[in-house]
Structures are given as structure tokens and as C-alpha cells.
């Protein structure tokens, strides 16, 4: 839902980032207000996951220029755990397997870290079990997954559901979901989309990274952005995604070439 007077949650200005010596993000601009749902699309390798990981604070990426403000604070100054505690959530494109660490304990420690930040009391094992069982319903996940190691041996779809479960527990203000829809069967896609819709409200915002219209049929975006070569090349409403579905990304090349002639505008 677009409300021009809604508070700005996340503001990305001219963000440049590199990994090792390779520049990947080359001037990303994006403003997200409370209540909005944004979709970011774009070719493989255009920098979508890089953007999400830079926002979450992955140490492999170095920000070389630009700024990001989150709820008025300088996001880039915050440690990754601090960003999470303040309500920034990244649903990973490739959730990480952690052998030997119990999923239940992981979820509890993580939830308590966020609760402590919000001034809420920490939940003991019993209270947390109640909460997690209730939130499991959002993603229709079998409680048996709680007793396993974090993501270890989970199928692709199970890992994605585990991500949404974490989101349901952490109640983020800004949720970035990186291809949470890929690898899901049709039922799971609906379950995940229902989950995201349930959690989306007037006070928070969602950034969906996706390749497919089928997700956007279930979660209606307020804005659709097309990323190319490390920047946002075009922004539109939900109809932009439909147009992409018809026309593909060929126009991107032309636009990039013409931008290439006017480097001042790109950089």
C-alpha cells in the first residue's frame, strides 16, 4: 500500500559495492516506506543478491560509495546482528546448513535477541515452544523440523519455509526475501505467499527479489524495479512485471548501451 506520508524505513542512495576487487553494485537508489511491497527483478548476475547481502552486512562485500539509512540510522555502521535485532530481515536465496546446531535452539536464541532489543522479556524454552508452534502454522511446517540441525538435509522448499518461519518469529520491519519462491512446488508457493501476506502490514515493508510473475500474482507489489549491471534501471508499478513477462530483458541491453554513452548519468 502506497502512502506518500508514510515514514521512510529504508533509503538507499547511490550505493556502490565490490567483492574482492570486483565492483558489483554501481549506484543503487531505492526508497522504501512503511506499508509498501517492492519487487526487484532482473537477469541472473545483475546484482540482486549482492544488494540484499550488502544490506544485511555480509563481510565479503565492501561498500565503496553511497549511503543507506534505516529508520533514520546509518545502516552501514551497524553489525549484521544489530541490523537483525533492529528489524531488518534477509531471507536467503541459499539458506546455510549448520550441522550440529539445533534448529529450535537457533530460532530461540535469534528470537530472544530481537525481543531483548525491543525491550521485551526473553522467552524460556517452554514459552518459546508455544510461540514457535503457533508460528509454524503460518508456513504449515512439521514440528519435526525443529529437532533437526539448522537446514541440514532440508529440501530446497523446506529451507525456504524455514526462512519464512524465522521471519514470522522475528517480525521484521523490513523483510528482504531473495528468491524465496524459487524451488517451491505450487502448494508451497501459495503457503509462502500467504505467509508473507499475513506478515505484511501498514508498519512494515517487504522487498521481494524474484524472477517470476507467479509470485507477484499472489503478492501484489506496489513497485517493481528492474536491476541491471548493478543498478536499478527502471521502476514501475505491478504492470512492469507483466510487461517483462511478455518482452523479456532485451531492452535492458539497449538502455545500458545508451547509458554507456552518458557515463556521467550512470556514475
Amino acid at each position, binding site marked *: 500500500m502506497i502512502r506518500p506520508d508514510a515514514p521512510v524505513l529504508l533509503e538507499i542512495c547511490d550505493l556502490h559495492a565490490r567483492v574482492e576487487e570486483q565492483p558489483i553494485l554501481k549506484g543503487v537508489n531505492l526508497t522504501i516506506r512503511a506499508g509498501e511491497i517492492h519487487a526487484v527483478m532482473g537477469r541472473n548476475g545483475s546484482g540482486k543478491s549482492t544488494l540484499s547481502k550488502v544490506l544485511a552486512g555480509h563481510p565479503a562485500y565492501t561498500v565503496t560509495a553511497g549511503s543507506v539509512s534505516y529508520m533514520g540510522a546509518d545502516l552501514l555502521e551497524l*553489525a549484521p546482528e544489530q541490523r537483525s535485532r533492529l528489524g531488518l530481515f534477509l531471507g536467503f536465496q541459499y539458506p*546455510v546448513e549448520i550441522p*550440529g546446531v539445533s534448529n529450535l535452539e537457533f530460532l530461540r536464541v535469534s528470537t530472544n*535477541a530481537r525481543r531483548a532489543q525491543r525491550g521485551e522479556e526473553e522467552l524460556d524454552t517452554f514459552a518459546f515452544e508455544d510461540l514457535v508452534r503457533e508460528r509454524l502454522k503460518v508456513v504449515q511446517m512439521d514440528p519435526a523440523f525443529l529437532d533437526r540441525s539448522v537446514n541440514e538435509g532440508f529440501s530446497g522448499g523446506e529451507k525456504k519455509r524455514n526462512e519464512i518461519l524465522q521471519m514470522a518469529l522475528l517480525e521484521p520491519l523490513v523483510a528482504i526475501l531473495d528468491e524465496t519462491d524459487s524451488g517451491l512446488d505450487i502448494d508451497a508457493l501459495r503457503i509462502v505467499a500467504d505467509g508473507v501476506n499475513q506478515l505484511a502490514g501498514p508498519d512494515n515493508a517487504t522487498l521481494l527479489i524474484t524472477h517470476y510473475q507467479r509470485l507477484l500474482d499472489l503478492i501484489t507489489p506496489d513497485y517493481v524495479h528492474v536491476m541491471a549491471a548493478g543498478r536499478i534501471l527502471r521502476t514501475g508499478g505491478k504492470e512492469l512485471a507483466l510487461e517483462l513477462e511478455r518482452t523479456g530483458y532485451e531492452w535492458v541491453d539497449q538502455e545500458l548501451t545508451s547509458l554507456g554513452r552518458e557515463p556521467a548519468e550512470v556514475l
Partner: protein
Amino acid sequence: MPNTADWLTQLAGVPLPGRSQEEWRFTGLAALEALAPELWSGVDPFAQLSLPAGISRIGADQVQGLQQQVLKATGGSDAWSVRLNQGASPRCLALRVAGAADPLQLHFDAGAAPGLLALQLVLVLEEGASLDLLIQHGSSGPNATSLVAVVQLGRGAQLNLGLLAPGDASASLLSHLSISQAPASSLQLTTAVGGWALSRLEPCISQLDGAAQTRLRALQLVDGQELADTHSQVRFEGPDGQLDQLHKVVADGAGRSVFNGAVRVPRSAQQTNAAQLSRSLLLSDRARVDTKPELEIVADDVKCAHGATISRLQQNELFYLQSRGIGAEQASRLLLRGYCEEVLRELPAAAAALNPLKLLLREHP
């Protein structure tokens, strides 16, 4: 008072092993030599032991014969740690297990008393017998515990043997485990050792006619100036034997970890299936890890896999935890615990109540 090195030489009847011996190349005995040259004189740890159903004592007249038989089969007779033990007036416990026995727990805590404590355990599992045995070592002072355990597994016998040994920075542990396996027997040996100035584990297993199962799980932790060494050896003296071995190390501080995993597959041991994996986690730049598989394979129709990795905590795993609000330090601790848990959860069930992770990591809650 004699000097400790001379005293130890006298007990063992041979000079102290030095760096020129391959078996001891990386493992100096400074921690032992720093101890007072005397025998430990605390309360006999075997004095008040009540045995569960299915377990009986073996008569003293049979003990030596059994020991010789097993040590000969595993090649343990000449080991320096065995000789030292035999010369140090060992206290001996000899047990026979028939049928499915109740779990047994033995606790050898050298406490704060100084000196060398020598213990011998003789264990015979008769045909088809089964036992869960947890041996717990401990110390809180400048002493050394020497254990020589000799185990004979009859046909179809099943032994789940755990050794949980949280130590003390002034104490040493020398543990020699010689185990012979008849066909169709199965051995699970899980060892978890950490916190000793010096520890040396020597699991020596012989599948007498092959066709047995051996599963080895080990966790070895070093920190500070500690030195931990495991020299394992598995011999297959017949066909169709199986080995599944995982050796894990956590090396922190200026700790030093040594692992040598010998697997011997002579021509008679066709169709042997052996896998050995050694994984080391380096938590500090000053820590040092030496790990070496030693495969001696003569038979041609066998599967023998081995691998060794040395790594630091995985950045991606750390970041995943951090991205969920878990601070870097707590995230590292969770990962470390997960790493250890893979081995610890395989200890016999009785270990769970002891919280082995806490004992070994010396965590302050």
C-alpha cells in the same frame, strides 16, 4: 629423589621415547617429566564398584593370559605406554560380560593427588554379549593417569565404548585401548578428550578374521599450551571388514594436536570397506595441527577412502547466524558446539547427563 625421566625409564624398562621415533615424533613428554617421580596414592578407584547384572569378575589367574593374547593380536605389546603401565604397579579390573548387560560407568578421577596412577581394564564380551560402557577420566592436579584397556569381543558381540576425558592443564593422560574383534562383532568407540597438558590415546583394533564392524568417533580439543595426540590403528586380518572413522580436532590458543590414523589391510583382507575422515578446526594462528593417514593396503579388492580437512569457522555459517541477531561471539560458540556435538552425541547414553560439552569446553555459563 631420582629425576622423573630416569624413574619413568626404570618403570618402563626402556628409555623414554624421543622425537627420533616416528610414533612420538611430534609428541614430547615434557608434561610427564615435570611431575614428581612417585606413584599416585589416592583411594583405589576400583574399591567400591558394584557390577550390574550380566557382568562378573574374571579370576586373577586368567588376567595375564588374556592381556597377552589381545595385545599380541593388536600389536600393542611393545607400546611404550603399555610397558610404562605394566611397570607402575597397576590396579586391575577384569570383567566378563554374558548376554545383554546393563550399561556400566567407570569413573577414574585422579583428583589433586600427585604422581602416576596406573590402571588396567580387562573386558571380555562373550559370544553375542552386548554392553554400553562409559569410561570417564578426570584430574585436578599434577598427576598422570595411565590406562591400558584390553578388550576381547566374541563372535556377534556388541560394544559401545565411550571415553570421556576432560583434563587439567597440569595433568597427563596416557590411554592405550587394545581391542580384538571376532567376526560379526561390532565396536563403536567414541573418545572425547580435552584440557590435558598432555594426552595420548592409542586405540589399537584388530579384526581377527575380518567380517566385523568398527566405528570410531573422536573429538580432541587443545587450548593454551596443551598437547593432544591420537595414534589409532585398525588391522584387518580377514575379508569383509568395515571401518568408519571420524577424527575431529578443535585447536585453540597455542595448542598442539596430533593425529595419526593407521589402517592395515593385508592381502587376506579382500572386500574390506574402510573410510577415515579427519577434520580439524583451527581457532587460533598459534595453534598447530598435524594429521596423517597411514594406509597400508596390500589387498586389491577393497574400498579405502580417506580425507583430511583443516579449516576455520565458516564465514557463511557465521554470517547466517549473525543475520538472525546472534552476536559474533555467541555465533562462534554455537558453531563450535555444533561441531563438537557431532561426536559427543555418539557417546553412550549415560554421558548426556554429564553434559560433556560443558566439561570439555570449560564453558562458564
